[in-house]
């Protein structure tokens, strides 16, 4: 204890002052002493030792019983000192891990980044927010300059955090490696299913929805691998309809096939895609109903698509007291003409 303020003399004079005056100033200084001690990694048993020594100097006739009992207290503090040191080490380790995860998270963001395309006649809004630093949700837009089609992928790894994020990166790279002319939703899911089945732990499941919009014939074709059903919004009636598409989650069996559906998109209609982070929002212990989600979306659906998804996100963020339990992804695509 080289520090002048930390030494025995200082403690002794503080103690003496307190015993004489019993005033708050001395107690405040004791608090400062204790903080300074912690900064210098001084264990509680050392403080007690300093206390005993100071007391002995102030009261040379200290009775044997008091002296012994203070030594007893010192003995009883040893484990607290150890626990405190362990806590310090673990805290350092935690901040190292934290910064490692931040680096990984920003790497993931770069890897999974997708450009929201500007497509004539379509208004697109997308938001994806991880519950923790790393996301197990993923969405991606694929455009084709030749025929102006738009591919939309939205996927969710069951589970979250780092394992989910790692699995997601794999999905992204598999999709990138598929041939350019491979734009067929059911074929894409079938290919991805084989990749996931071969490479991902059987306990991990990935749900995915893939849709392809062809402006030439105003048709939206899609297939789903067990993904949270999205909604089709009828602009003229101001009503929602669930987009039905059933299929096995990716990776369950290598033989899975995915049925492809098609539908015409009318002017002012919207396609709404989401992950279960949206539908499994909780208020207290209660999951919200899908109807409640639709009410919220309805409230904002007239806004430009990007503004709408952001408002919906903000609504649920507040509802959940700013603490999402799962990654949240929402996409709205409106046909404007």
């Amino acid at each position, binding site marked *: 204890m080289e520090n002048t303020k930390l030494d025995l003399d200082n403690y002794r004079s503080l103690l003496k002052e307190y015993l004489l005056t019993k005033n708050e100033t001395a107690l405040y200084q004791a608090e400062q002493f204790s903080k300074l001690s912690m900064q210098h990694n001084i264990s509680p*048993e*050392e403080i007690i*030792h300093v206390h*005993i020594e100071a007391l002995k100097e102030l009261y040379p006739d200290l009775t044997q019983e008091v002296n012994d009992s203070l*030594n007893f207290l*010192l*003995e009883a503090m*040893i*484990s607290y000192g*150890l*626990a*405190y*040191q*362990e*806590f310090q*080490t*673990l805290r350092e*380790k935690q901040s190292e891990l934290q910064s490692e995860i931040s680096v990984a998270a920003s790497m993931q963001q770069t890897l999974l980044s997708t450009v929201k395309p500007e497509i004539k006649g379509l208004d697109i809004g997308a938001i994806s927010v991880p519950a923790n630093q790393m996301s197990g949700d993923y969405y991606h837009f694929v455009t084709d300059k030749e025929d102006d089609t738009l591919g939309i992928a939205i996927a969710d790894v069951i589970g979250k955090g780092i394992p989910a994020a790692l699995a997601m990166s794999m999905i992204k790279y598999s999709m990138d490696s598929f041939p350019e002319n491979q734009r067929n939703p059911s074929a894409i899911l079938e290919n991805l299913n084989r990749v996931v089945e071969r490479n991902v732990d059987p306990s991990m499941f990935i749900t995915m929805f893939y849709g392809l919009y062809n402006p030439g014939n105003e048709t939206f074709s899609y297939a789903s691998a067990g993904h949270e059903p999205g909604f089709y919004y009828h602009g003229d009636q101001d009503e929602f309809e669930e987009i039905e598409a059933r299929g096995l989650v990716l990776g369950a069996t290598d033989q899975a096939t995915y049925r492809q559906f098609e539908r015409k998109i009318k002017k002012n209609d919207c396609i709404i895609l989401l992950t279960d982070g949206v539908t499994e929002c909780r208020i207290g212990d209660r999951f919200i109903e899908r109807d409640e989600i639709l009410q919220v979306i309805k409230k904002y659906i007239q806004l430009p698509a990007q503004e709408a998804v952001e408002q919906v996100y903000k609504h649920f963020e507040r509802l959940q007291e700013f603490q999402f339990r799962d990654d949240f992804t929402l996409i709205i695509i409106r046909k404007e003409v």
Partner: protein
Amino acid sequence: MDFKPCVNIRKEWDIVGARQLGREKAKEIGFGTVDQARIATAISELARNIYLYAGTGKICFEIVDDFEHKGLQIIAVDEGPGIRDISQVMEDGYTTSGGLGAGLPGVKRLMDHFDIISEVGEGTEIRASKWVR
């Protein structure tokens, strides 16, 4: 080497015997009360490990007094199952004591020098020393 005083660990009560002998040695060499208490706690941990995981073993003490150091070495020896993954038991937070900050990392913190040799199926020898300042 001097005659080494040892305490056999067979039952929980023997931990107290080991602490007592260790504290006497520590006092003899000139350790202050705080270090005496730390040495006693380290002995407790080592003796309890023997009692819990090896069943029987012994704790011996050696007074170190050479040009460099003056101090006490605790030697804990058992012929128990041994430790398969030493790095793991030396990791903070691993302790079977339920995160009470003790365990072998605790012993290492309480003492100035710590060494461990273990063979699976043969046993474990831990040497922990503390120097008088």
